[in-house]
């Protein structure tokens, strides 16, 4: 499987990335096993896989939140040793600071980076407009709907203008309609401010709609099973197309790869939960 990119500049390079978790009185669990992957600059790359396949773990290692057990991850040729402001992250459950208002959440990173006040305010105002939350600046996260919270989380990350955006099932906690709207939002934002986006999802359709390439992972231990180019399924005005024969074809193609893995993951889960009693 050719996971190595072609001509474009490589932004994120993973080589032999493995993650083992120690489990007391049992063999280590291998979550991610020898992943080689190149993510091109300004590419929107989605990772799909059955639950528990280590796709989020891989994302956290790119973010520098978890250490790799083996192998290495390079960003712009430099080895990742910890979190950095060059890699912004958006989580499934938003992880907004609940004690800060919408405006203060978006300001947070700018304040931490000691950006001058005038610039800070201008950036924040611009982002609040971008995510369509004017009028909600002084509201606390608890007063927002899930979709609004995720918009704020995205704006908070975009505020410090990271070159890479890591997204961990960002729309997984939203209802179907909101999810579609947010997918459009992401495409719109991504078209306005080109970034390298690494996107983890269990929604194959979402992956095909949004991503340039879709990486399919196996059940645990997570390896790369296939990489599918989804660009050919995108209409020129992709944001407005939710369903097309090309998209359906790509979704089916990915499902062909995924079906066995999902079945395997379910068996693993059944075994581990029955073993837990003993």
């Amino acid at each position, binding site marked *: 499987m050719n996971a190595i990119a072609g001509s474009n500049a490589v932004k994120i390079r993973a080589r032999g990335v493995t993650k083992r978790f120690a489990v007391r009185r049992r063999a280590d669990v291998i979550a991610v096993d020898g992943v080689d992957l190149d993510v091109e600059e300004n590419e929107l790359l989605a990772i799909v896989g059955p639950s528990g396949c280590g796709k989020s773990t891989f994302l*956290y290692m790119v*973010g*520098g*939140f978890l250490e790799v057990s083996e192998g290495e991850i390079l960003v712009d040729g430099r080895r990742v040793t*910890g*979190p*950095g*402001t060059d*890699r*912004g*992250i958006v*989580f499934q*459950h938003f*992880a*907004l*600071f*609940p*004690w*800060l*208002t919408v405006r203060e959440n978006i300001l*947070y*990173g700018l304040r*931490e*980076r000691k950006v001058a006040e005038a610039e800070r305010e201008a950036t924040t105002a611009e982002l609040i407009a971008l995510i369509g939350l004017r*009028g*909600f600046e002084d*509201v*606390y*996260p*608890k*007063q927002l709907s899930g979709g609004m919270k995720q918009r704020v989380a995205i704006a*908070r*990350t975009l505020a*410090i203008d*990271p070159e890479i955006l890591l997204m961990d099932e960002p729309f997984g906690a939203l209802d179907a309609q909101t999810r579609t709207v947010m997918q459009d939002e992401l495409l719109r934002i991504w078209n306005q401010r080109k970034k390298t986006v690494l996107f983890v999802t269990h929604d194959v359709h979402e992956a095909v709609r949004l991503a340039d390439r879709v990486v399919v992972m196996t059940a645990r231990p997570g390896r790369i099973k296939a990489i599918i180019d989804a660009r050919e399924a995108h209409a020129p005005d992709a944001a407005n197309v939710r369903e097309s024969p090309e998209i359906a074809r790509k979704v089916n193609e990915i499902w062909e790869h995924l079906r066995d893995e999902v079945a395997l993951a379910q068996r693993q889960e059944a075994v581990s939960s029955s073993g837990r009693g003993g």
Partner: protein
Amino acid sequence: MAANALSDRTTRQRETPSWLAYRAVYSVVLVLLAWEIASRTALINPFFMPAPSLLVVQAVKLTLQGELLPHMGATLLRALGAILLAIAIGVSLGIAMARIAAVRWFFDPLISLGLPTPKIALWPIFVLWFGFHDQSKIYLTTFACAFPLVSATYLATRDVDRYLLWSARALGTGERRMLWKVIFRAAVPDILTGIQTIIPFAFILIVLTEMLSGGIGLGSMIMLAGRLADIPTVLVGVIGASILGFAVIRLGEYLRARVLVWHEETTDHA
């Protein structure tokens, strides 16, 4: 415009009918009424259980004689002092335990052992160390209250959501600033809960130490009146202590709602 979209939480709250608004006091009123009647009709011996109306008279009398308020004041100030000291010690030690392995290693077993220990049993030692006056009472109460507060703070600061910490790291917050910028703030609700739980303990312990030592304070007043079989004064003392504790608990609830405007639990954001 924003306000309208956001008010779904507030509009869903029904208007409380006025007759229900004070239902919390009904049970108290009922008990007082039954007590009054039972005592007045000598259903219970009025010497051992004087009617509430007599207690009011007694409270007024004691107040006019200058015999009540100084005692209440002393008890209140000691309890508040002990609570504040316990907050200072308990919260800082709890945070230190969550953050510094050596501190945790040293204090964790001590706290676990000390939590169920009856701290009041150390009273003789505290008296020998700090004398019969304010210090021994306040320090013993502080000591007793610090244990549950250390535990509450330790658990609250240890269990901060890792996604919040990761978000802050990715936004540029370093390891050292994390404590104040994220960990402490995220732990505030549970720390406040810890503080609120020690308020009644503090009043119980202060009154108890006063009962053991004499001098000024509601506990001493109660003991002295008891020796003279002055049951109305004993009851006035007990009710006085309850009212003080209740007032401080309500103050705690008020401050909590002010501090936690951002929290899910605080609903009336008008």
